[in-house]
């Protein structure tokens, strides 16, 4: 096996609140290979966002080790792309300028890459549009292009399609797979939608709450493009659901013990 692009070892993270200490993540171990598509799934509050923020270098107060390309993550940087649930575009900039952000479109190299990314995320004709003129899905595609322009080693997506309607969401999943197959960018994609997790992933990381830890990792070997209606897809779905049900049982026991 090749060297992992991302290596998380014995990661613990707790939040100090005025009253108590909340353990958000406990004993996370995860190796991600280059070009892999990982989805992270788990109930709300189990630490998915916290994990992603730590990998992004947005939160440095943790125990353990998080290495990107064998280097300890020391802070945010363009080698770690981040997509938030909302597109978070600069409302005063056009689509192409949003993608360029702090870079200048007058630089021919930037110009060329922005143009090809606009094609990749299927936004031709909207280069000069302002964010308010875009639909939610289009805006999120701009955000993805903005992150990809910087050639990140890993793209971190925190429930990026969570706010979209079902049709747009399905379309965005296909667009994202297109991008991935084209660019081979390593993806870590947080979701709480089981279908979405299976549709996209090479491996599904299932998190359980209190404290947030890895419940199991389900490899998905179905060939792309996947069809949600097939029996193999559905049996995988049951397998993941089964993990969750067991998870709920243990939760129940936990609470009864309190």
């Amino acid at each position, binding site marked *: 096996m090749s060297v992992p692009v991302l290596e998380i070892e014995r990661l613990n993270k707790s939040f100090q609140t005025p009253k108590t200490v909340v353990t958000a993540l406990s004993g996370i171990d995860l190796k991600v290979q280059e070009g892999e598509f990982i989805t992270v799934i788990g109930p709300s509050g189990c630490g998915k966002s916290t994990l992603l923020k730590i990998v992004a270098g947005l939160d440095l107060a943790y125990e353990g080790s998080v290495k990107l390309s064998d280097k300890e993550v020391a802070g945010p*940087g*363009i080698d770690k792309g981040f997509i938030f649930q909302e597109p978070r575009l600069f409302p*005063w900039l056009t689509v192409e300028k949003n993608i360029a952000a702090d870079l200048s479109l007058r630089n021919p190299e930037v110009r060329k890459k922005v143009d090809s990314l606009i094609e990749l995320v299927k936004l031709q004709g909207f280069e000069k549009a302002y964010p308010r003129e875009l639909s939610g899905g289009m805006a999120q595609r701009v955000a993805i292009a903005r992150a990809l322009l910087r050639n990140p080693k890993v793209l971190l997506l925190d429930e990026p399609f969570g706010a979209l309607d079902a049709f747009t969401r399905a379309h965005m999943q296909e667009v994202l797979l297109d991008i991935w197959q084209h660019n081979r960018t390593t993806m870590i994609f947080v979701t709480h939608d089981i279908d979405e997790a299976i549709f996209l992933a090479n491996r599904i990381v299932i998190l359980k709450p209190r404290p947030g830890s890895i419940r199991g990792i389900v490899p998905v070997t179905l060939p792309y493009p996947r069809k949600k209606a097939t029996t193999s897809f559905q049996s995988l779905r049951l397998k993941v659901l089964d993990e969750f049900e067991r998870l709920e049982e243990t939760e129940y026991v936990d609470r009864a013990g309190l």
Partner: protein
Amino acid sequence: MSIEQAELRLPPAAVPPAPPIGDTRTGSIQAIVKKPASGWKSIVIDTAIGAALPVLIVALWQWAAERGWTNPLFFPAPDVIADAFGSLISSGELFHHLGISVWRALIGFVVGGSVGLLLGLLSGLSRKAEYVLDPSLQMLRTVPHLAIAPLVLLWFGFGEQSKIVIIALGAFFPLYVNTFVAIRNVDNKLFDVAKVLAFGRAKLLFRLVLPAALPGILLGVRLSLALSWIGLVVAELIGSQSGVGFLINLGKQTSATEDIFVGVIIFAIVGKLVDSFVRLLERKLLHWRESFEG
């Protein structure tokens, strides 16, 4: 002072095109400016509708004056005022004094406004600067700046300096307050984006903070200009040998009430024009904002 105090409570992002509270001089010109796409015909119609009431009042006034129902010393007839207008223009006096007034207001605005903008940026960008500057400035802000006009005259005499200082004092606070608030209200979520994209310090300032704060800063500019103009009127009325305020004072001394009216009308027109100009500027610079689609 009530103008900028009222504005302070509103986040600048939410304020946009609504006329500032206390600003009563928003009328037909704004209506024209706001609907650029609706074409010539509707502009003419809008103007006609907006002008109907003033025209009616002036006509009634003229009619009453001709019947001798009004005292010409208090209410000179519109045609008398128009004549005064004509003679002040043809003698060159009007534009001479108007030029002086505009120049004073401009200098005062530039001095007070730029210091306000600078300190607003400083306080907005740095907590340390905020702790040092803001408490004192907030305290000073509660003093109506026109109330200290006599003090300014005492310190700087009756020359140009005191006028500029009075105008600058008025221009300072709206720009300071609105710049400060606008910077502090920049969306934190966008700061996260800037972090993730690894913006440098300069890029953070010029590509995020300033563009995001621009609507608030422009609102400050508009309020500053309005207060500069009010400061000018006060400064010139208190004592001056030139300017539109001087024309008004002269009219009072010589009982030429129509000249007073001319001065007041000029103050109103220029004030309105300045306001419309900044609104135009806002439309140009903030065209990305939804609220400007109308």
